[in-house]
């Protein structure tokens, strides 16, 4: 296997879905097992959704786009909080050094 193929395999190797994925699927599958009336209504909804999808697919792409926007928004929030935590931590470190310098200056001055 060439190094390039190795890199391609590494980049495409399997990864696990987020925690709770299986439980979410099983919960949704259970919810599909409803009494007759619910099944009828759910089926009607599914058919209606299929018609919308077949007509243009715009609804499907909008749902995916909205999900993508939400995911992007969550990622941006996470990045912001990480950035603020790091900035806060480094500023506090610098502040400690500054305070230590001030303290040493005061001590030196009082000795003179």
């Amino acid at each position: 296997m060439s190094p390039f193929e190795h890199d391609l395999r590494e980049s495409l190797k399997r990864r696990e879905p987020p925690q709770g994925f299986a439980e979410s699927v099983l919960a949704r599958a259970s919810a599909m097992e409803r009494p007759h009336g619910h099944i009828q209504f759910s089926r009607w909804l599914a058919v209606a959704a299929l018609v919308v999808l077949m007509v243009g697919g715009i609804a499907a792409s909008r749902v995916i786009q909205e999900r993508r926007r939400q995911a992007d928004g969550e990622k941006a929030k996470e990045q912001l909080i990480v950035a603020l935590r790091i900035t806060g931590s480094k500023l506090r470190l610098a502040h400690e050094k500054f305070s230590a310098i001030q303290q040493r200056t005061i001590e030196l001055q009082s000795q003179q």
Partner: protein
Amino acid sequence: MTKTDFESVVREHQGMVYSIACNFFHNAAIAEEIAQDVFLQLYERRRSVEAGSHCVAWLRRSTVHRCIDTLRRSSFRNEIQVDVLPEIPVDVPATDPFLQERLRRLVASLPETPRAVLVLRFGEDMDAEEIGRTLQMPVRTVWSHLQRATALIREKGARYLEEKEDEPVRTRSS
């Protein structure tokens, strides 16, 4: 397939289904959505799908087709054209996490069919015959897509490395 079998199938193959979708779109949210839909579709048809290798093939086929359909219907198409490229004998040096990310993005920017072929070949380790059955195309067409897409990714990946090489000493990252 019983309901108990279905639960085992979900737990055993969630990684495979999710990874195919994730590698296809390079987007975790979309991958999760598609993976859920595939399993729910399996649940609806569980009486006609047997557990075991039949189920694995079914899951792979459904996931890839769903990815291709979704891509065709949606607007996030920033594809690059797979033209006929000359042979580019470039050896890309050792593993680099930024290169891997770049490769994932490049794969996710290919047109849908070469993209599916690469994901199944390098992500799922399938041979050309298996890929041909999954995508319902002749083996020679699979090879053709594979050669062209691989050459394109190689060229663009190597160009990225050349741009990165501006320091005197490169150290190997683990």
